[in-house]
């Protein structure tokens, strides 16, 4: 007899009985407990990302007058800062909309592959948002450094004593430093999502493999 047929016979013979019946009284509280599914976790992570970058982007506007002045001085003129902040706000609004749509499209009653795709799509939106913010952070920090060196009277005097080679090396070191810092940040993200979606990714690959 085919192994699975034997198993099926046993499985179906036992299909009506269960050794651990859960009463309706016990089901009621179970229904209302908090879910610990990856969709829920992904949702909390996206909210956290949103709040984190929102605070970071809007910080200059709520910071002290002196800090704002310093920033304006650093950027040479306030237009650059306003443009960068405006871009960030627009991106945040677009991101919130896309994320809302993506979360709404996740349905546990879809077929397994579609469900996995919806979750991965949500994760992708968060990924793009994080990449955008990291690129923006890189741009603003390097721009900030450039303006500080050229327009901040204290710093520019110090740099004035340097030869152009020394100046180039110190700028290179700072830029590479910022890039490494952001890269570590990115790897940290990858790790969080990697752990969270490990099982899903593995199962999705398995389903995809079937179609090759």
């Amino acid at each position, binding site marked *: 007899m*085919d*192994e*699975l047929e*034997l*198993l*099926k016979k*046993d*499985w*179906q*013979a*036992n*299909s*009506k*009985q*269960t*050794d*651990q*019946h*859960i*009463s*309706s009284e016990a*089901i*009621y509280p*179970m*229904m209302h*407990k*908090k*879910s*610990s*599914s*990856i*969709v829920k*976790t992904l949702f909390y992570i996206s909210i956290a990302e949103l709040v984190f970058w929102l605070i970071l982007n809007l910080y200059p506007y709520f910071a002290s007058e002196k800090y704002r002045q310093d920033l304006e001085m650093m950027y040479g003129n306030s237009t650059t800062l306003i443009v960068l902040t405006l871009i960030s706000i627009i991106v945040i609004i677009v991101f919130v909309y896309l994320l809302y749509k993506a979360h709404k499209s996740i*349905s*546990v*009653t*879809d*077929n*397994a*592959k*579609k*469900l*996995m795709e919806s*979750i991965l799509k949500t994760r992708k939106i968060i990924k793009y948002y994080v990449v955008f913010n990291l690129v923006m952070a890189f741009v603003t920090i390097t721009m900030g450094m450039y303006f500080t060196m050229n327009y901040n009277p204290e710093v520019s005097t110090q740099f004035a004593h340097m030869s152009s080679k020394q100046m180039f090396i110190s700028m290179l070191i700072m830029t590479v430093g910022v890039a490494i810092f952001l890269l570590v940040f990115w790897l940290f993200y990858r790790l969080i999502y990697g752990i*969270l979606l490990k*099982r*899903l990714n*593995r*199962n999705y690959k*398995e*389903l995809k493999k*079937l*179609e090759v």
Partner: protein
Amino acid sequence: MNKELENNFVELLEKHQNIVHKVCRLYTNNQDAHNDLFQEITIQLWKAYPKFRGDAKFSTWMYRVGLNTAITLYRKSKRTIKTQEFESVSFKIKSVEYDDTEEQQLKLLYKAVHQLNDIEKALVLLYLEDKNYSEISETLGISEVNARVKMNRVKKKLRTILNP
């Protein structure tokens, strides 16, 4: 959500809970993990229930939500990693009609099924429930031909596990 909807749901779940237990049995290795998964499937079923139209059979709908939770949504807690606990809880239902050899064979079979990956387990579960390939393909989102091919591979894999 109104009380009537809640009562209907509880009544249906209580009646068909064996389906959820079966999914839990295949995807977990110990009682704690079983309870955890049962809990999560219940939450997901309840969340999706208002959209349940009744055009599908409740049991079929439960399989879909249960399997989706097990293979996609569920995050294994640390305690589920202890696979050695498998023996003590595995399949407690004992059949009286089988002789010792057959029972022994069944035990090995269940153990072999536990060694399959999540998707393979889903295929086995649907197969054991006598679902046809069209239903299997619809639940997993793969083509019928692929479901058939994969099922044959799973059978082969089980044979290899049983007779190394």
